[in-house]
């Protein structure tokens, strides 16, 4: 009874958020920046925010997460953070030698109103930025949006700073993924590669936050998209945005700034959405879907058909980030499960709410933004108990109190490994996810079965 104070009766709240289903912008911005090669994220504000963001990402990935901070004290908070930022730039290049410093603002520097554009220009004027190096920033006030918004803002800033249209198109397709795991970044690349498509994808955190152990510490691991490739994305012949809430602003910017026509798709989670992704790639690249991809698809469909009886009709609740949630909702629908609740603290917008409802029907309760928190989700679940919950690690308290299984698919995951190594996107990711779900239900059935109904073959 770890959440024993959560009553079943739902009363309206306007001011108090309890057990949030989101966190703040900079952590998402930091994650996006880590997907750029030799880029050091920098947090402009008090050091506490940076410490929290680094700790959160470190716990989630069990990997070194490097980021510097302007370390404001009261003086900077009152008089502005310019001198801290200028000093930071100097020290960072002297000690850590990144190619790019990707600054994210914090609530504090936003409230003071530090003008980072002007500060960076000043640093440039004072020759504090070595030749060939870049200092860029994204505005990420946490009193707006969530970590997903921060990711979206940093991704836009990356487009803004690096993508250039030279007038000569190349034959690459640019892929912009939403806030997903490095394993999912790899899976999306894998699909493009299998299809023989020339692509530029960013950010790409694979081989950065799931780097192998080789006896050395690499300040800048081998992964991450290079500045040069991002520059070329401005000339790419087409772009695909995977996910809407976390990618839309960047996709739009790439279109307006570089006139790269962009298809906005959902994250390829499950059969339907992956089909759409593969089909879109096929059409715009003018290729045939290779047998290997058909095989991957076939295996997922095969397993679903073989074991559908264990998932069909099962009731689930979903918590997480909007783009992933949409994919999961579609996945559940494909598998014949019934989604009771969809909750995200990210203010995803009325359009998102509507799309989820259209997909799942009126029977599903969808809530995003203010007071869409785990307290509320738990109350909903007490009133209509699901068989399974998808969410982040904090959901384990609800899962325990309600005695139902939890599949960890949202940020942050502090207590299980796997999410950064095994995907949930693409057909292979779909198979992995389906097997997790099957395991959860079959383990439960085995646990609860009376002895005469305990089955060997399932």
């Amino acid at each position: 009874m770890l959440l024993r104070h959560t009553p079943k009766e739902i009363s309206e709240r306007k001011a108090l958020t309890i057990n949030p289903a989101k966190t703040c912008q900079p952590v998402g911005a930091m994650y996006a920046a880590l997907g750029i090669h030799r880029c050091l994220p920098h947090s402009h504000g008090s050091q506490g925010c940076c410490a929290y963001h680094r700790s959160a990402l470190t716990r989630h990935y069990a990997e070194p997460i490097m980021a510097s901070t302007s370390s404001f004290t009261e003086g900077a908070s009152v008089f502005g953070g310019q001198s801290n930022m200028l000093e930071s730039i100097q020290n960072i290049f002297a000690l850590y030698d990144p190619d790019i410093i990707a600054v994210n603002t914090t609530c504090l520097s936003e409230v003071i109103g530090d003008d980072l554009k002007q500060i960076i220009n000043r640093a440039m004027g004072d020759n504090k930025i070595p030749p060939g190096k870049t200092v860029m920033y994204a505005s990420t006030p946490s009193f707006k949006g969530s970590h997903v918004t921060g990711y979206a803002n940093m991704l836009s800033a990356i487009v803004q700073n690096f993508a250039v249209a030279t007038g000569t198109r190349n034959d690459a397709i640019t892929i912009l993924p939403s806030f997903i795991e490095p394993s999912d970044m790899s899976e999306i690349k894998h699909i493009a590669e299998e299809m023989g498509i020339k692509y530029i994808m960013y950010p790409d955190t694979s081989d950065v936050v799931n780097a192998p152990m080789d006896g050395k510490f690499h300040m800048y691991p081998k992964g991450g998209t290079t500045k040069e490739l991002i520059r070329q994305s401005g000339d790419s012949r087409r772009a695909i945005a995977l996910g809407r809430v976390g990618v839309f602003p960047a996709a739009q910017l790439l279109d307006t700034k570089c006139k790269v026509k962009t298809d906005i798709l959902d994250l390829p989670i499950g059969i339907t959405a992956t089909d759409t992704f593969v089909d879109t790639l096929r059409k715009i690249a003018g290729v045939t879907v290779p047998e290997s991809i058909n095989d991957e698809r076939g295996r997922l469909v095969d397993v679903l058909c073989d074991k559908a009886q264990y998932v069909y009709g099962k009731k689930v609740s979903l918590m997480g980030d909007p783009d992933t949630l949409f994919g999961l909702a579609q996945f559940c629908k494909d598998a014949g499960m019934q989604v009771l609740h969809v909750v995200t603290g990210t203010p995803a917008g009325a359009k998102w709410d509507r799309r989820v409802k259209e997909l799942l029907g009126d029977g599903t309760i969808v809530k995003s933004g203010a007071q869409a928190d785990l307290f509320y989700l738990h109350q909903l679940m007490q009133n209509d108990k699901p068989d399974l919950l998808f969410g982040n690690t904090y959901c384990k308290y609800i899962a325990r109190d309600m005695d139902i299984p939890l599949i960890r698919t949202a940020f942050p995951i502090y207590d299980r490994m796997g999410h950064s190594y095994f995907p949930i996107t693409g057909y292979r990711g779909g198979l992995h996810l389906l097997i997790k779900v099957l395991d959860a239900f079959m383990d439960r059935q085995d646990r609860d079965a009376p002895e005469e109904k305990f089955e060997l073959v399932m």
Partner: protein
Amino acid sequence: MLPVQELSSVEDFKANILEAYPPKIAKKRARQIIVNKVENTEDVPVIMANTRTIPGIITMRGCAYAGCKGVVLGPTRDILQITHGPIGCGFYSWLTRRNQTRPTSDQDENYMTYAMSTDLQEDEIIFGGEKKLRAAVEEAVALFHPKAIGIFATCPVGLIGDDVHAVARAMEEKYPDINIFAFSCEGYKGVSQSAGHHVANNKVFTDVVGQDDTFSKPGEFKFNILGEYNIGGDAFEIERIVEDCGLTLHSTFSGNSTYQEFSSAHNVDLNVVMCHRSINYLAEMMDKKYGIPWFKVNFVGAEGTSKSLRKIAQFYQNDDLAKKTEAVIEREMVEVAKVRDDVKSRCEGKTAVLYVGGSRAHHYQDLLREIGVVTISAGYEFAHRDDYEGRKVMPSITVDADSRNIEELSVEADPARYKPRISAEERAKRESEGFEFADYHGMMPDMEDSTLIIDDCNHYELEELLDRFHPDLVCAGVKEKYVVQKRGIPMKQLHSYDYMGPFAGYKGAINFYKEIDRLLNCNAFKFTKAPWDTEPELSATYSYND
């Protein structure tokens, strides 16, 4: 004891480190990186501490909010805590410090698993957030009916000028049964978590301790432990031991603690202090106001635990208590000695470096020493000079602008409730016999000559240190963990214990010995290099067809 590094190599290392810095920073770091030298009088070199973090540096530090809400108040189970600010600060301080708690019954309040925030939005940042905070308190009261509510201010709240204290007062008027108090613990205060500890101490002292004159736990020898946060169940183990000795642990500030224990904490005879840095203010203030003496203890390490128990027993001057205490020590040490000797045979002579919060880098050296592991460098994230050099330097610590904005309460003896637990003469007499009250010697006197003491060690310095001295073990926090482990060096988190524990007391010592044994001797890290990486390159390729 093994010799530590050669003095020349340590000096040389320091010089190398400083070379990479711009001159102004080098000058500052030179005063924060100290080669230890303990004179016979325990006069140690002066270290610069509790000064600003260098902007742009990848630091191990956090903020005042983390020190106040996360460290000191976080582990209290029935004080409902509302973070006033945007969502992040409250989110990150939610359960991540793993302070364990065990309510006495299912009916008892336990808000540990709840994170509450006003989740300030842009409009409130522009027009002020007090109204939302008031509404949030009302909603919290309606849902939870708590005994007490703590409100925590974050950076943006301080800047927009919300008066959290006024809101707390107004809400307390509305709900007179609930103790509602607020903390000005904005993250930019001070230079690290330390400022937040001080803010927390002050408020807990003025608004919580002393509220309840009637409650007292049964027992003859009642005391509080300050600065024990029950990470991994440490406080449970300490409680087990002291109860066996015949002592009554009235309250633990603030591991597994309740509002009632805090509000009546002045009804005891003694305070003992574990983490000096985070809570020495409260010990000092309770001494002045209520006449409760305090001394420093250490329940980390089997020897430290025995020593601390004996000192507590000695304080009460009761034969029966002393006898019982000795019996407990004897009983517990049987198993401890067995495991210790076994582990020591495999760990003796290994080296460690420790960079942790504010006391653990000192305490854990005892445990490591017990199994023969030598600490070659240590330092703190948020300490002050007294944590390194001892309390005797406190009068000579200069107050700079960053410390000045943390209120220093002036405390006087309570006219009605001041009651010296031992008379001034008795105290003087005992002190003359060598019993120390209100003192702490600091970490440096306990460390070997020519070890490196580094205050506010940063990522770059840690890297250099690993390159130069190749320690066998590193103890630090989560942000450092994988930086170290990627190199194939095992790293033990001493903030979270890597989700193990307890490490305090006797059972804790046994756990810790075994854990260090595992880290130093398990196979996993030996796989870091593949065989083809360690063998010389083949000079020719072999082909079946040749």
